[in-house]
């Protein structure tokens, strides 16, 4: 992979920060939607570089975080069955359900595997005809094309031992829910670059206009994020509310048409429950009628599992940008990555886990000393 250093250049970063400082005259609250952006901001200390008047709040775009507890319990119920090979993206393995996590199920003899692509399940299915291969198909629009491709190819190949446990969610309905909330503080968005690389950003335009909020489709490298913040601040200061594209090296307004086609062939939009938030209408995907045969919820009859979230965790408010991790009394105390109380502490992309991993549970006075490091 080339051109990483170019997007992490300290001199250019300092220039962008200076431009933001000059552009900004009012205090602004900006939400970065995607968990990958949150991770990059905290990992690189970008929020500490910004002028005091600019507050970044962390959005709902962490796929592991927003997967509802009941769906995790369904996954665990399936993974515990003999004869099942349960396949998942890596960071789902440590997410606790009502009774342990996938690592615990694995240590109890369950066959749980990390896959890097959903398509890996096809090979497993052919190699293990006596086993049921179940893929935990979670995520936003970003993972939807590859997950759809699994169902599509499984049908083409006539595989009967593959199924998907689908918990797919969509970004625009979540943004709409955040903006419609009476508690909303968010004045502008860094829209998610990888989601828009798949579906484009046409859908964001009516939202920006209706709520009069600027949105800048932004990438994930430090300079991407700083440039995205600059573009958003310039819009805010001049009273504009448009959708702009910072991540133009990766995506165009219309997104990726073949990816959209495969999604449309396999999935249809449906209501979805979001962890910590509740049900948002028309906010996710389910398998289309002709692919229902690949629905793991039906195949393993786990549709009836309905788990309520624990009340202590404020993950829901964190995912909506109403609160920050340190606003939670349990953060860094009872709730750590070793003993997470909620989903935002589990995934590397969750705001609480990112804050914890990069030392945000420590006092600022401990951190300031790094400034003294000779360059």
């Amino acid at each position: 992979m080339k051109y990483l250093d170019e997007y992490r250049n300290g001199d250019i970063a300092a220039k962008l920060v200076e431009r933001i400082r000059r552009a900004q005259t009012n205090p602004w609250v900006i939400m970065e939607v995607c968990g990958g952006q949150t991770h990059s901001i905290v990992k690189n200390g970008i929020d500490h570089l910004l002028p005091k008047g600019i507050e970044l709040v962390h959005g709902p775009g962490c796929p592991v975080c927003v997967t509802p507890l009941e769906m995790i319990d369904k996954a665990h119920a399936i993974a515990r069955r003999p004869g099942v090979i349960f396949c998942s993206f890596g960071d789902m393995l440590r997410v606790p359900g009502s009774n342990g996590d996938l690592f615990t199920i694995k240590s109890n003899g369950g066959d749980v595997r990390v896959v890097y692509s959903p398509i890996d399940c096809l090979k497993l299915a052919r190699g293990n005809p006596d086993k049921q291969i179940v893929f935990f198909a979670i995520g936003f629009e970003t993972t939807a094309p590859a997950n759809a491709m699994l169902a599509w190819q499984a049908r083409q190949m006539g595989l009967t031992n593959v199924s998907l446990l689908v918990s797919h969610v969509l970004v625009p309905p979540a943004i709409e829910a955040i903006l419609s909330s009476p508690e909303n503080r968010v004045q502008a968005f860094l829209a998610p670059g990888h989601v828009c690389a798949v579906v484009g950003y046409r859908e964001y335009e009516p939202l920006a206009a209706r709520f009069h909020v600027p949105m800048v489709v932004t990438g994930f490298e430090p300079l991407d994020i700083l440039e995205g913040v600059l573009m958003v601040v310039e819009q805010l200061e001049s009273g504009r509310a448009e959708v702009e594209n910072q991540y133009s090296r990766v995506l165009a307004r219309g997104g990726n048409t073949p990816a959209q086609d495969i999604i449309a062939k396999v999935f249809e939009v449906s209501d979805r429950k979001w962890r910590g938030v509740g049900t948002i209408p028309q906010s996710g995907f389910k398998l289309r009628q002709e692919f229902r045969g690949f629905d793991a919820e039906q195949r393993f009859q786990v549709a009836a599992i309905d788990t309520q979230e624990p009340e202590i965790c404020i993950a829901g408010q964190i995912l909506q940008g109403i609160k920050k991790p340190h606003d939670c009394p349990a953060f860094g105390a009872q709730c750590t990555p070793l003993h997470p109380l909620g989903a935002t502490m589990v995934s590397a992309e969750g705001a609480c886990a990112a804050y914890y991993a990069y030392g945000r549970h420590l006092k600022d006075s401990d951190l300031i000393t790094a400034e003294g490091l000779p360059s």
Partner: protein
Amino acid sequence: MSATKTEERQQTRPGPFGECPLPIFDHPQIVLGHGSGGKLSAELVEKVFVRRFHNPTLEKMDDQAQLQIAGARLAFTTDSFVVTPIFFPGGDIGTLAVNGTVNDLAVGGARPLYLAAAFILEEGLPAADLERVVDSMAQAAASAGVQFVTGDTKVVNRGKGDKLFITTSGIGLLDRPTQISADGARPGDKILLSGYLGDHGITILSQREGLEFDTILQSDCAALNGLVAAMLDEAEAAGNLAGIRSMRDPTRGGVATVLNEIADRSRTGILLRESEIPVRESVRGACEMLGLDPLYVANEGKLVAIVAPEIADRILAAMRSHPLGADSRLIGEVVESHPGLVLMKTSVGGTRVVDVLFGEQLPRIC
């Protein structure tokens, strides 16, 4: 391991039947994270092993035990190897088993001399595979200047092992008056790293998962005793052998984990500069794609040394003139502030904490 100790104190308040003699290990069973080198591993070692085997030598928790026996100073260590696949670009389980143990001795300042090997073989293992591994071990031992002087073999039923597991133990002679230990770092000391990070871990991962990258990566598996000897020679020539304070080979858990151990054991802070940490483009690309951090990825032929500022330049030059240290860098300093913590100045100018991971580093979803 101070965090673990604090937790423990809270958990071992005297109960109605007096003080509980053992800390509570609050996992009903072992999970993979207990082998990750992170917080879960530390908890396992502390709560299950150290509490039961306790003695001052063990409690030093260095990569090797340093022993005084009848006038001789010896270093003693052991390590098990369970890598899958057993053959990979740059080495195999046999070269790892030799070099890993040699390195654990060498980073304590010892001259590795003798090794023991114990093999657990799974029924059905092709004899040719075993011979290939043992050939590698013989070659690696010869090139590191050590001899296998004892060993053991067991065979388990098919399905009860994963082809072959090797445990190697080693003895080395501490024939110079070194004082190298994880608790030796002092404010002002410099942190030297002997080359590119993450080659081994990413090579194994890409083999195991069938991931294909543009460049062919190789494990960095190598015996470091020659490099260490060159560093000790230079420190002796400078009249400051004690200036080599701590050394570690950052295997599982990576550089982040060993630096946290040193910061914790020495009660000092550590400051790193991200821009100085060498990571190959291919390793960085793979880490980006998988959502991994090279600071936590395993190395099998690298060392991190904490050295006194007076001799840092000389030691760095000596490292660079050795073939296994050609890409050595000064990556940071030991500081008085924030004891027990590792901080890093990021390339873009921010600051982050580099903490110990709790368990396995998990690939991110997207």
